[in-house]
């Protein structure tokens, strides 16, 4: 029983971070219908800037720099590459992000060289014991930050001009343009937000508590697991991103112990496959109507 509770706690903590990552996918997809395969490289990029600026700025300053630069990189990718190819459909643009991902990831892995820096200085490896259960501080802070950010996002999405514009654009692009919504601004903001979320997430991922490894190629692989998170919830559902994230965290933790560690990685994807077969647009996704 104790083991089970501990696994639940581990899974929930990780789920919060997966939710942040999945939300990034969802924001971009909602605004542009593009699936961003470069999300993992945004995560790496933010983390890398923390590493290089930490010496001079201190951890807190470096963390801010990292978050901002991940956002800026996302913005640049959108402005310099995606927005230039107006003719390309979302499908081709998704392929384009694969190209971006390969380049950014390989370069950062090269720059990291032999070092595997951990970047969760403020909370890493300081567990709390509550009863017989260990709470990892990284997980606790991640849960808190995820709750705050996701709430803020929901509020912005519902009440801010950007949120309204984005929802309008997601509903009907042509109509939104007709009523004067500037599609480029909505799109850019979406990318910026996704980048920032990636920059925040990496502060929890490249830690001893979360991934057991510092910033490396493995960090990128973890961001990949946010794919099933986003898909399970439904690529165009913000609420779904949270459910999906938590699901992935729990499935991973529980199947590691109760089935086998080797199976855990596949288990997450298997759950995704089952969800997709039953509900092709994810649990909370809008059913895609066939456009004639």
């Amino acid at each position, binding site marked *: 029983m*104790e*083991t089970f509770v*501990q*696994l639940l706690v*581990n899974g929930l903590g990780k789920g919060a971070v997966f939710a942040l990552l999945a939300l990034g996918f969802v924001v971009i997809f909602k605004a542009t219908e593009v699936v961003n395969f470069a999300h993992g490289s945004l995560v790496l990029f933010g983390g890398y800037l923390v590493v290089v600026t930490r010496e001079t700025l201190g951890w807190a300053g470096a963390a801010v720099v990292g978050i901002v630069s991940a956002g800026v990189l996302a913005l640049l990718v959108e402005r310099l590459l995606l927005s230039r190819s107006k003719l390309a459909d979302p499908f081709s643009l998704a392929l384009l992000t694969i190209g971006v991902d390969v380049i950014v990831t390989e370069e950062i*892995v*090269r720059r990291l*060289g*032999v*070092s*595997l820096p*951990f970047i*969760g200085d403020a909370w*890493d*490896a300081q*567990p709390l*014991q509550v009863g017989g259960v*260990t709470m*990892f501080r990284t997980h606790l802070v991640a849960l808190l930050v995820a709750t705050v950010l996701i709430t803020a996002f929901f509020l912005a999405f519902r009440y801010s001009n950007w949120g309204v514009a984005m929802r309008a654009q997601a509903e009907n692009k042509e109509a939104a343009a007709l009523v004067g919504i500037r599609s480029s601004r909505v799109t850019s903001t979406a990318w910026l937000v996704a980048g920032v979320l990636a920059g925040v997430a990496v502060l929890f991922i490249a*830690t*001893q*508590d*979360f*991934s*057991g*490894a*510092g910033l490396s*190629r*493995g960090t990128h*692989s973890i961001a990949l697991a946010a794919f099933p998170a986003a898909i399970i919830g439904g690529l165009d559902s913000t609420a779904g991103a949270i459910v999906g994230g938590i699901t992935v965290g729990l499935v*991973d*933790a529980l199947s*590691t*112990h109760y089935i*086998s*560690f*080797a199976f*855990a*990685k596949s288990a997450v994807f298997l759950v995704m496959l089952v969800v997709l077969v039953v509900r092709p647009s994810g649990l909370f996704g809008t059913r895609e109507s066939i456009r004639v």
Partner: protein
Amino acid sequence: MRRLIALTCASALVLAACGTKGGGSDESGEGAGGVTTGVGVTDSEITLGVMTDQTGPFKNLSTGITHGNELWVEDVNAAGGVCDRQVKLEIVDHGYKADTAKTLYPQMEPKVLGFVQLVGSPIMAALGGDLEADEMTTTPASWSSELLGNPYVMIVGTTYDVEMIDGLSYLQEEGMISDGDTVGHIYIDGEYGANGLRGARYYAEQHDLKLREVKITSSDNDLTNIVTGLKGQGVKAILLTTTPTQTGSAAAANKALGLNVPILGNNPTFDPLLHDSPAAGALDQLYVVASSVPFSADIPKAQEVAQKYKDANFTAPPNAGVPYGYAVAEVWGTVLEKACENGDLTRAGVHQALEETTSAETGDLVAALDFSQPGAPATREVYVAQPDASVEGGMKYVKQLFEAEDAKNYKAPHEGQ
């Protein structure tokens, strides 16, 4: 367009006229000093190959080993070389990818006498047949006794299975485990992990231990959930045949979850960089068994190599790979000298010399080695070390070279075949 066709035809004709690649020359011949030479050896140079990992998961250790090799080459050349020939290294990076290695190999093969370093069990698995066919004496940076089935493989130091057996007897001797206990073993799926596990299983059988085996892959770094499970099963110790990063995770979880049992790791499980990681505070329960010394062991030869490393201004932080790399190269020196004495510096001659090498001396960098028993590890002695951030290289001894009774009786998979 017609011109293009004409051009194509013309070039085809030229190609045909150039003659084919056939008609290669016989490579062996009498060289300087009355020594028979072959591939990779000229009158002035001996070329040894290094296929290493500069970009993959074992890049730290590999880089250390490469630098160790390089330091020895500098020394030996300064002292006049081997057999009146300067030693040269041909270094390539395969990024721990078998496919890249498989392509690089045919290109390396005609240039080198043997491999002083060949990193990684996946690469060994892919190239094993080629090495045997080409009679290429090779020192893999992989200490699996499974590799000893290939007569051209020279493992400097003991093998993972024997390390585990020695290490477990150390734990038992110190009263940390006793017969009948439950013990967890986390191992990487691969030749490395499988070989460590082989040793643990053998010991468990001898001492009635209940072994909880958990297989992981080299890229899984968060072992928290596994250690949570092992805690639930009441393990008295955790054995690791993993990467250094995974060691950090297991140690951190061991502490965080309040399990606090001793952790026993094979030689490659530790990397001094762990002292700079958040797991630094959790390393006090870690014991590492190895047949080569830590970077700054307090033996004269190790100190000497450490000093050379500092003088050479390498950028990478030092690790146990450096003295090991130096020692391996030195063993190669011994073997090459012997081949030179025999007057045969061909690949066959080197192999012959290897089998005649019953004692290779490395100034205690590695336990004394005996290569004359095909299929058997060249030594069964190990050191036990513990992490210590205050020393260079990050590790200090807790037990000097020893060979456990169980290790002596253990039969390696290809022994006596």
